C-alpha cells in the first residue's frame, strides 16, 4: 500500500455479528486453498459469502462494525488482505488473537477492541471515525463513543502500510511493497 494512511474515515456502517470466521467468513476458503494473494481479487470477494451487498456496494471509507471474536479460525492472510484491499475501516467489539496479529501485520485501519460500541451502532448508520484517537461519531444517532485506539507502537505499523513496509522503512530492506 503506497501513499498515506488516513487516520479518519467517514462512511456507512456495515454490521456483522459475533464469531465471524477468517477462512470461510471474511474470505472464501478456496482462496486459501488455491493460494490467491492478488488484492484486487481478494478485495472483490471480501465478506461476500456473508453479505453479498457489502461485497457489491461498500466503498473505501466505509466501516465494518463487528461483534466479539472477529476473525476466529485459521491463521491465514487472505482475510486481512481482503479487508485492506477493500479500503474500509474496521471496528470490533473484540478480535481473535491470531487475527489481531495478522491485522496488525497487514496494517488494517482499525479499532480492534471496542466493547463500548455494543448496542450503539446499527447497520447503515453514518459514522465519522478517528482511528488515531478512538473517537467514533455516530452521525445517524448524533452520539459520540470514545473507544481505546491502537497504542502508538502498533499504529506505526498501520501508518507504514503494514509490517513489510514498516520493516522496509526501519531497516531500509528491499522488502518494500512485496507483501501488498
Amino acid at each position, binding site marked *: 500500500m503506497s501513499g498515506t494512511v488516513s487516520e479518519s474515515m467517514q462512511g456507512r456502517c456495515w*454490521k*456483522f*455479528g*459475533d*464469531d465471524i*470466521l477468517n*477462512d*470461510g*467468513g471474511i474470505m*472464501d*476458503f*478456496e482462496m486459501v*486453498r488455491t493460494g490467491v494473494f492478488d488484492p484486487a481479487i481478494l478485495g472483490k470477494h471480501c465478506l461476500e*459469502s*456473508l*453479505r453479498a451487498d457489502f461485497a457489491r456496494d461498500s466503498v473505501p471509507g466505509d466501516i465494518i462494525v463487528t*461483534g*466479539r*471474536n472477529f476473525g*476466529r*479460525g*485459521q*491463521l491465514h492472510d487472505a482475510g486481512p488482505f481482503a479487508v485492506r484491499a477493500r479500503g474500509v475501516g474496521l471496528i470490533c467489539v473484540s478480535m*481473535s*488473537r*491470531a487475527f489481531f*496479529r*495478522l491485522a496488525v501485520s497487514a496494517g488494517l485501519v482499525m479499532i480492534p477492541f471496542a466493547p463500548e460500541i455494543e448496542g450503539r451502532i446499527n447497520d447503515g448508520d453514518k459514522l465519522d471515525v478517528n482511528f488515531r484517537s478512538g473517537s467514533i461519531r455516530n452521525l445517524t444517532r448524533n452520539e459520540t463513543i470514545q473507544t481505546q485506539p491502537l497504542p502508538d507502537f502498533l499504529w506505526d505499523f498501520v501508518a507504514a502500510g503494514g509490517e513489510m513496509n514498516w520493516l522496509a522503512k526501519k531497516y531500509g530492506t528491499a522488502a518494500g511493497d512485496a507483501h501488498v
Partner: protein
Amino acid sequence: MPRTLFDKIWDQHAITTNAAGHTLLYIDWLLFAESTFADFEVLRNDGYSVRRPAQLFGIADHYTPSHGTTLADAVDDERRNIITTLERNARRHGFEYLGLGDPRRGIQHLVGPEQGLAQPGVIVMCADSHTATQGALGALAFGIGGELTHAFATQTVWQRKPKQMRVTVDGKRGYGVTAKDVILTILAKVGAGGAVRHAIEYAGAVIRDMSVDERMTVCNMSIEMGARAGTVAPDDKTYAYVHGRPFAPAPEDWDTALAYWRTLTSDPDAVWDKEVTISGDQIVPMVTWGNSPENSLSIKDLVPTPADEPDAQRRLDMQRSLDYMDLKPGMPLTRIAIDQVFIGSCTNSRIHDLREAAAVLNGRKTVVPTLVVPGSMSVKREAEAEGLHRIFIEAGCTWGEPGCSMCVSLNGDTVAPGKRCASTSNRNFRGRQGPGSRTHLMSPPMAAAAAITGKLTDVRELI
C-alpha cells in the same frame, strides 16, 4: 498454592517471563505438515538453522492422495511439489520425515500419540489448528502459526498463559452415544467463542470412562470453542496406551516416569476461571445444521427457526447459514437428504471410530458415495487385520489411504458445489470441503447410518 494439570506442565517448561507477561516455553516435540515451506524459507533467508532437529517431525498429511500410496498418485504437480518440498527441508535441516511410503505416516495428531511422542507432562506443538487432540494423553498440545520460524530456530515459543476452564461431564453415556456427541454437546453449550483465551481440562465420569481414542475426539474440537488447548488428566488407560510405543520411556525409566505422571492431576482445590458442567445422561446423537460447529442439535430436533431468535444480529446470522445450507426452518433434521459421506479426519479416524462405523455398516449397503479414510498407516494396518476394510468395501464404501482428505479438501477429495456431505470431521465452515460444499458434522456411526439411508438418521434405530 494449588495448581491445575495445565499449571504443572506449564511451570515445568517455563524458561522466563517478560515484562509483558509472556512466557518463553520449551517445546518437547514439534510436528508439522507440508504447508510450512514458507516458514523454512524465512528461516533460510534469515540465516538460522533448526535448533533441535531430533525433536522435529515433518509429516505429509494435508496434500497426500487418498486413492494411492505414491507421489505419482497426488492429483497434480503443485501438490507433488508441496510434498517434496517438505522432504527436501527434512534433508536440509536433518529432521525426521514421515512421507508417502513410511509405515509411521498419518495425520500428525494421530502420529504424535502413536509414536509415544505425546505422553503425560510433555509439550507438543504443531503448526495446525487441531493440535489439542494430543492433550488427551495428559500433555499440553498447542497449535502455533506465526511463531513457527521462532520455534524452529530456538525450540521455544512465547505464549501468554491462558486462563483455566474445566468442563465436567458427569453421569454415564447412553446407548449409541459417542465421544463426538459429547463434544458436539459441549460445543452447543459453550459456543464458538466461549473458551477464548482459556485452556480446557475435560473431567467427570463420562471422560474417565472413555478410551484414549475417544478422549482424543473430545480434545480435538477444543479449538472450535476458541480454546488454546484441551487436556485430560492421565490415568491407567493413558499409561497403558503409551507403554511400549517407540518414544515411550525406556523400560528402566518407566517407574520414574510413572511416579511423575501420577502427580499430573489438578489439585482438588485448584481454582478455575470458568467451569461448565454437563450431565452425560442427557447427551444424545448429535448433528450440525449450520456453518459453525456450535450449531449442533439432537438428531431428533428440528432445523431452528430464525424468528424464534430474539437477538437481531444472531437472527440474521442464522438466516444466512440456513440460506447457505439450503434448509427450511422447522423441518426435521432427519428429513435432510445427503449426497455423500466422509468418515475420517483427526477428529474421527482412529481404530475405535472405524470399529464403530463398521458395526453399523456390517452387512448393509450404502446408497450414497462414502469415503472411509483411516487416519494413519498404523490404523489402516490394524483395521485391515480385523477385516474392517472388507466390511466397508462390501457396503460399497471407498477405502482410502491415510491423510486429512475430505476434511479440508487440499488433496483433491472434494464435495462439489451445492452438494451435502455427512462428515465425521471438525469444521462445517462455508466452503470447507470445497467451494459451495455443505457439511453436516456427526459421529462415525451417525455418518454410517446416513450412508445407509441417504439422509440424516438416528443411528439408534439401526443398531
